[in-house]
Structure formats: structure tokens, C-alpha cells
């Protein structure tokens, strides 16, 4: 019993440290003592209160949720496609979201609560439509071979990507907005965005966490899994829907952040093995922590400037992964 809960203790600890770091560090220096005092409700200066509670805390919450979503769905996609290079954007979520967002940006929405939700809503809608399109293209009779999914995903992603670029070229006024959205990252986040995100993530990530056994069986191939009693069509459908929902929601609010969905599951696999019943929940927790740390770096590397967090994940993620890979090799893990 102790052995199986050890990885969760580690990842929870990692996440806790990442959360605290994200709240305590920013471009304005606030001493840890002051941070602690404000968090437990003691009065402090208005500026510190605003910075901690209205800027850092919601941002920390959103980044943690997005990291969890991306890593969880990345692990699920890697299991579904039986491909170590799979990431959450493989079947068109990112390109669809980009198209939706750029389309929404070319319209001047009224300044109302609904109008301000237009861009994330459009991104969300278009990403799901894109996945649906990919799914329909990939279907062969009643089954959905994963090779078809990947091919259709690549084709549809290229197409929507080209449409997005075309739209961006034609509306030079909104180019800046579109570019900064596509690079990913969050700046000022309202609690309403986080509340809007939570239901999708709770349901989607919950479903994915429970799909561990199905994914384990799918590793043997569709036929074998069916012979072992798995309804492969239903399982694949559920996993695709849950993972896409989760990724679409994350991208709608945070733009396109790469590498977390690809690398975190691999690192979890190297440390604690490929059992998807454990891998998905561990990836969820560790993904949250990893993206939080990347966001902290994004804030302090070029302070007072801020880097888009997608750039930090790319720059930091790749070498880190290579290091973990080397370590695993030397320890004889493969």
C-alpha cells in the first residue's frame, strides 16, 4: 500500500510547492511572510492584497488547471494512439481553437459580460467542431482506426491552420491580438473564467482518470483489447470526447501552450511506469505543477517583461526531457 501511494505523495508535494512558488513570486517583490499573512486573511496594504488575491491567485489557479488538463489529455492521447509523440493537439484542437479565436477577434463585440466571452467561446466551439470533423473523416464503418485519426488530424490541422494564417493576414489591425493569443499564456484572469473552466475539467479529467484500465487494454491493439472484453469503439469515443473537451477548454482560456501534454506523461512513465490507471492521475497532478513552474519562469526570466509561457515550456521542456531520458537509460529503465 505504501509503495503505490508514494508517487502520489511526491506529485502532491511537487504541486504544493509549485502552487506556493507561483503565489509568492512575481515582478513585484512581496516577502514570504507578507504573502502568508495575506493568504490567511490578515490585513495588509491594498496594493499587496490586490496583487496577491486579484492577480496572482486567479492566475495560479488557471495555470494549474490548464497544466492539469494538458498533461492529462496528453497522457490519454499517448495511450489512445499508442504513439509516444502524441500530444493533446494531434487531432485538431489547437488549430480549430486558433481559427475560432481569430475569427472572433475580427468582430467588434459589445463590451458586455457575454461579449467578453466571445473569443474563448468561439475558440472552444471551433476546436470541438474540428475534432468532430477529424473523427468523421477517420471513421471506417463502425470503427475508428487510430492511424486514420492521426492522418485526418494532420490534414485538418493544416487546413485550419492555413485558414487562420490567411485571416490574420487580412486583418492587420487584429494581428497583434491574434499573435499574442496564439503564443499562449494568461495575464489578467477573472474568477468567472476559472469557474467556467472547472466543470469541463472536473468531468473530463475525471472520466480520463477512470479510463486507465481501458487504455491499458488498448495498448495491445484493438483486436486484442476487444477479445479481452473491452468495447473498443465506445472506449475510444469516450476517451476522445473527454480529452478533446478538456484540451479545448484549456486552450480557449490560455491559448496554445505546447510541450506540457507531450513531456509530462513521458516523465511520469519513466519514473513510475506505464500503467495508465496511475499514469493519468499522476500526469494531471504533475502537469499542473510543471506549468506553474514554467509560468513562474515566464514571469521572472525577463522581469519586468513577461515571456509567453508557451515559449518557456518549449525552451525548458525539451532539454529537461533529454536529461530525464539519459538518466532513465543509465538506470537501465529501457
Amino acid at each position, binding site marked *: 500500500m505504501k509503495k503505490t501511494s508514494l508517487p502520489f505523495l511526491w506529485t502532491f508535494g511537487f504541486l504544493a510547492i509549485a502552487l506556493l512558488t507561483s503565489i509568492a513570486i512575481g515582478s513585484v517583490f512581496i516577502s514570504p511572510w507578507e504573502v502568508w499573512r495575506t493568504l490567511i486573511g490578515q490585513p495588509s496594504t491594498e*496594493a499587496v492584497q490586490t496583487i496577491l488575491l486579484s492577480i496572482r491567485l486567479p492566475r495560479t*489557479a488557471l495555470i494549474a488547471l490548464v497544466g492539469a488538463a494538458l498533461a492529462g489529455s496528453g497522457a490519454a492521447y499517448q495511450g489512445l494512439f499508442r504513439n509516444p509523440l502524441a500530444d493533446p493537439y494531434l487531432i485538431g484542437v489547437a488549430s480549430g481553437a486558433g481559427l475560432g479565436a481569430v475569427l472572433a477577434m475580427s468582430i467588434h463585440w*459589445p463590451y458586455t459580460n457575454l461579449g467578453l466571452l466571445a473569443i474563448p467561446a468561439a475558440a472552444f466551439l471551433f476546436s470541438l467542431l474540428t475534432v468532430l470533423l477529424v473523427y468523421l473523416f477517420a471513421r471506417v464503418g463502425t470503427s475508428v482506426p487510430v492511424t486514420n485519426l492521426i492522418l485526418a488530424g494532420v490534414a485538418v490541422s493544416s487546413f485550419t491552420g492555413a485558414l487562420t494564417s490567411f485571416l490574420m493576414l487580412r486583418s492587420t489591425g487584429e494581428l497583434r491580438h491574434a499573435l*499574442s493569443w496564439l503564443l499562449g499564456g494568461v495575464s*489578467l484572469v477573472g474568477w468567472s473564467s476559472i469557474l467556467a473552466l472547472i466543470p469541463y475539467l472536473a468531468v473530463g479529467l475525471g472520466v480520463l*482518470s477512470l479510463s486507465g484500465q481501458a487504455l491499458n487494454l488498448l495498448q495491445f491493439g484493438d483486436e486484442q483489447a476487444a477479445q479481452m472484453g473491452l468495447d473498443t469503439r465506445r472506449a475510444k469515443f469516450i476517451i476522445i470526447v473527454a480529452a478533446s473537451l478538456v484540451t479545448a477548454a484549456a486552450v480557449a482560456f490560455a491559448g496554445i501552450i505546447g510541450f506540457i501534454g507531450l513531456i509530462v506523461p513521458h516523465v511520469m512513465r519513466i519514473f513510475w511506469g506505464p500503467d495508465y490507471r496511475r499514469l493519468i492521475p499522476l500526469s494531471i497532478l504533475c502537469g499542473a505543477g510543471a506549468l506553474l513552474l514554467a509560468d513562474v519562469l515566464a514571469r521572472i526570466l525577463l522581469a*519586468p517583461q513577461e515571456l509567453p509561457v508557451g515559449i518557456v515550456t518549449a525552451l525548458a521542456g525539451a532539454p529537461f526531457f533529454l536529461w530525464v531520458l539519459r538518466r532513465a537509460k543509465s538506470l537501465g529503465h529501457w
Partner: protein
Amino acid sequence: MLRKLMFVFITFALLLSACGTPAAPAPAPTPVTATDVPAVVGLTFTDGLGRTIKLAGPAQKIISLAPSNSEILFAVGAGKQVVGRDDFSDFPAEIKDVPSIGGMDKYNNEQIVALKPDLILMAEINNPEQVKGFENLGLTVFYLSNPKTIEDMYANLEIVSKLTGHEQETAVVIETLKNRVAAVDAKMGAVTTKPVVFYELDSTDPAKPYSIGPGTFVDLLITRAGGVDFSVAAGIKDAYPQVSAEQLVITNPDVIILGDSMWGVTVESVGQRPGWEKLKAVVAKQVYPFDDNLVSRPGPRLVDGLETLAKLLHPELFK
């Protein structure tokens, strides 16, 4: 095992959502009005997004998040009241002494809060979501819409003068600007031929340069300066079209203005582009470098842009 995990996970999710402080109540949104002249009663304003702004008195600690706003603030005499600017604000030279708090949509929000501004002046170059974000932090934001005409620009100067308490000196500034524009308009009466003007925005690919088209401010200024916009002459309808070099050969503009000269494009390089050396404008040496900021920033320097264009296109009227 999994059930335990789900329990832990759901508890965690609930804790996260319970940690939230409720968002500051948003001000009741007033419907968007297309008004160029805002309602001013005491110190209540309606901004470009239709929001109602109330100030206790003229703003003393202003953060400008657009280069055009920085120019306007200094033009109305409020330069000393600016405590923060965006990265791209570079005119007038004094603004460089004001600390920069970010750019390209990613602003250093913590520093903005730490500066305790009483007004954040934003423009159409910023997103409405950012306005909402600053509102949620309890900061006062004024969103200045882009002017559609030069007269709209005077109205913007007036608004900012009221926001900052410089009404009288701004009235003088506006008078001077009006006189300068009237002087150009008067000279335009003597114009007999209007040259076709190709305003180049980008020529990284000389076979397909970017230009401006109908509906843009540059187009308006070119027309007012006694010229004909190339896009209009060629029947192009887009605001920022990518023009084929072949169209340039056919429509053969009389003047080429290099709006991209601040990015290093020189007059000599134009003649070296394949196919461009035969153009009327190149042969007659009517290719000119131009400071794009004079026509792209919606501030008082638009008048400078107009004058410069008029002198370029009709030098004989300004002898």
C-alpha cells in the same frame, strides 16, 4: 484505490474553487454608443466602449498603454502626470524617462497595481478583455476610440484635456492644429493634377508588397493632401491589401512613399527590385522615405503627417 484518488481529486478541485474571492462587481454596462463627442458632466465621462467613467478630479497618475495616447497626453500638457507607459511609446523624447510596464498585450500587471494609478488610458490597439481585467482590479480605465477623421482627433484631445485638467492650454493647441490643417486645405484649392500615390507598408517580398486601401486613415490623409490613393486607382477594396507588383506596373503610380523606411528600406533599394526599375515613380525619382508613425498613430501628429504628405505631393505650392 481509484475511489480514494477521485475523492482526493474532487476535494482538491473544490478547494481550488473555494479559494476564490468573488470578482469585483462589474459596472453596469451602458449600451455602446457611436458618439464621437462624449457626455461630460462635471467629471463623468463616457468612453469609447460606452462605459461610464467617474473621476474625483483631474487624473494625476496616468498610465498610458498606447503610443498614440502617450503623444496625446504630452500634447495636452499632461506629460508630468504620466507615471507609466507601454514599451512602444517613444514620442516625445521625454517619455523615455517614464518607466515602461510592458507591451505586446502582456503588461506587468503587478507593477501597474504597485504604481497606484488613478487613470489607465487605453486605445483601440488594446483589447476589451484587458479593460475588463483592469476593472476587476479596481482600477479606472478610459478607452479612447480611434478617430475616423481629423476632427474626431481634436475631440479626443479635448477628452484627454478634461481627464487631466488642461482644458485651456489644449484649446490653444487645437486651434493651432486647426489653422495648420486649414492652411493645407486652402493650398489644395490650387491643385490641378492629383498624383497617384503608392504608400508602401511592407515589401519583404517585393513581388507582393503591402499597401493601404480605402477606409484607412492614411488613405484619408493622402486624399486630403491632394493625391489619389493607389488602391483606389487600382480598384482595390481591402484596407491593408497585399498588392501584386504587376498591378503596380499597370496602374503605374506617380509617387511611391516608403512607410517602411523606419525598418531600413532605402530609396535606392526600390530601384533594384526586379520589375520596379521601370516604374514612373522610380524613373522620375519620386520615391520618398516616410515616418509611418506620423500617419498611423491616432494623435496630434496626424497633422504633421498631412503637412508632410502635402509638401511631398505638391512641393510647388509650398515654395
